[in-house]
């Protein structure tokens, strides 16, 4: 039994590391549709992680959360985003405030920051794994960074979704899932936020003929 749970926690660690890997791929990726595909891949890994946690802790409500991740984040949201992208004229290279190598270095720094912040917290609670909490924090920070570093609305949305994935990983790995009602609320929120941001992006495209959010700063009354 001890052996099984230690293999299980190693598998969760492995999945968390895979999640971090997909984060870096998203930061380095310049093409919008590929970013969305990578987000779908990340969500699929998150689905596996959540299912593993559910199996190891035998808490059934996490299965429901994992299933919702599978349906909403792997299938529905990427489809919505793909539809939005189809409507836009920016399919090729993304515009960023920092170039890719600098962005990667900053993300590396953020990961280290997350590890040092999480280091004193980890021994305090009975955690399944040692590093998934730190990785969850790192994913949240990278998601935030993506939102800041990219100029276009859709890629900022991808950053938001990555951030949310990090929060979900943190919630499942550290506290074995939030109450189901909260979980459902969060999923509903994310779905609606994506839909609204999608519509909003289309409106931006119609109004400015571009989805560069920097242009919003020149709006005056």
């Amino acid at each position, binding site marked *: 039994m001890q052996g099984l749970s230690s293999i299980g926690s190693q598998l969760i660690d492995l999945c968390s*590391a895979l999640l971090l890997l997909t984060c870096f*791929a998203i930061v380095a990726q310049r093409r919008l549709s590929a970013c969305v595909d990578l987000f779908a891949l990340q969500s699929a890994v998150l689905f596996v992680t959540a299912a593993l946690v559910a199996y190891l802790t035998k808490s059934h409500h996490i299965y429901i959360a994992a299933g919702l991740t599978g349906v909403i984040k792997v299938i529905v949201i990427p489809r919505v985003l793909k539809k939005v992208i189809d409507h836009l004229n920016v399919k090729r290279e993304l515009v960023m405030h920092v170039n890719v190598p600098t962005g*990667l270095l900053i993300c590396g720094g953020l990961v280290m920051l997350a590890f040092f912040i999480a280091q004193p917290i980890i021994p305090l609670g009975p955690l399944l794994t040692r590093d998934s909490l730190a990785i969850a924090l790192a994913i949240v920070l990278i998601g935030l960074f993506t939102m800041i570093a990219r100029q276009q609305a859709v890629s900022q949305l991808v950053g938001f979704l990555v951030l949310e994935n990090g929060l979900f990983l943190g919630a499942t790995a550290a506290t074995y899932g939030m109450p189901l009602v909260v979980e459902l609320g969060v999923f509903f929120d994310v779905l609606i936020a994506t839909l609204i941001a999608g519509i909003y992006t289309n409106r931006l495209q119609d109004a400015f003929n571009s989805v560069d959010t920097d242009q919003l700063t020149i709006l005056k009354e």
Partner: protein
Amino acid sequence: MLLTIALIAAQTTVLLAVSPFLVGLIRKVKARLQLRRGASLIQPYADLIKLFRKQPVISTTTSWIFTATPYIVFASILTAGLLVPTFISQTPMNFAGNIIVLVYLLALGTFFLMLAGLDAGSAFGGMGSSREAIVASLTEPAMILAIFAIALTNGSTNVSTIVHKTALMEDIVTDPSPHLMALAALFIVALAETGRVPVDNPATHLELTMIHEAMVLEYSGRYLALLEWAAGLKLAVFLSLIANVFAPWGIATTITPAAIGIGLLAYVVKTAALAAFIGVIECMFAKLRLFRVTDLLGVAFILALLGLLFFYTLRS
């Protein structure tokens, strides 16, 4: 003593025999995914035999570097291959050098290939050498850091010791994160170093894209055969390294006929699986623009660095 020599000979034979097969397999997988039938798996062997029979043509403007390079490249990569465990975890040559020697033996071959590209004085050769220099200078730090991350988790820089310990699961730090980061970094480095698709396209002679092909453009006959074979060997060395360091399943840890048989089979299956995966990647991705290659190798560098730092943060 006799056994050691026999094992060295066996490993050399395996490496030489497997490398054209891996090249052929990648081409075959690519062809099948593009709904072509593709050349047969023994085609690279036939190509090598044909090239060895042809008379080489050497430009009169070249120096001794041009004729010496194929032998230097071939010998350095083959020596590097003898340091990497293939079917047996304790390679007979493991006293000769560790993983850092391996990296710089490969770099020696690259260096002479760049010189040879410049030597003939053709525009393409110089262009290829210049590009190879960019790629090589970016892959080296990533590769060294990835290798250090692995070496730290195993407490040794000797590839044989690393593989042997991992295969027997003895006193290693079992944290998957540093390993996964190092694996991803090393895989990107392998793609770049062996001239595979996101960095270089081995199937084209289009002047805008070629790197490795541009450097060997002036070669013909047995020199070209040696260089092609060396390129295949380099692929085999990288795939053996990745397969045996990260997944040493089935590798022979003792010298018994049964263990060696299983080890050989496992080796061929693992490297073939990796080669097929590279074939799939070549179909899925387009070649990157030359100045975007830095992004890809930047990812490799950051991942390797994180792997290294994870080791320390997880240890403390």
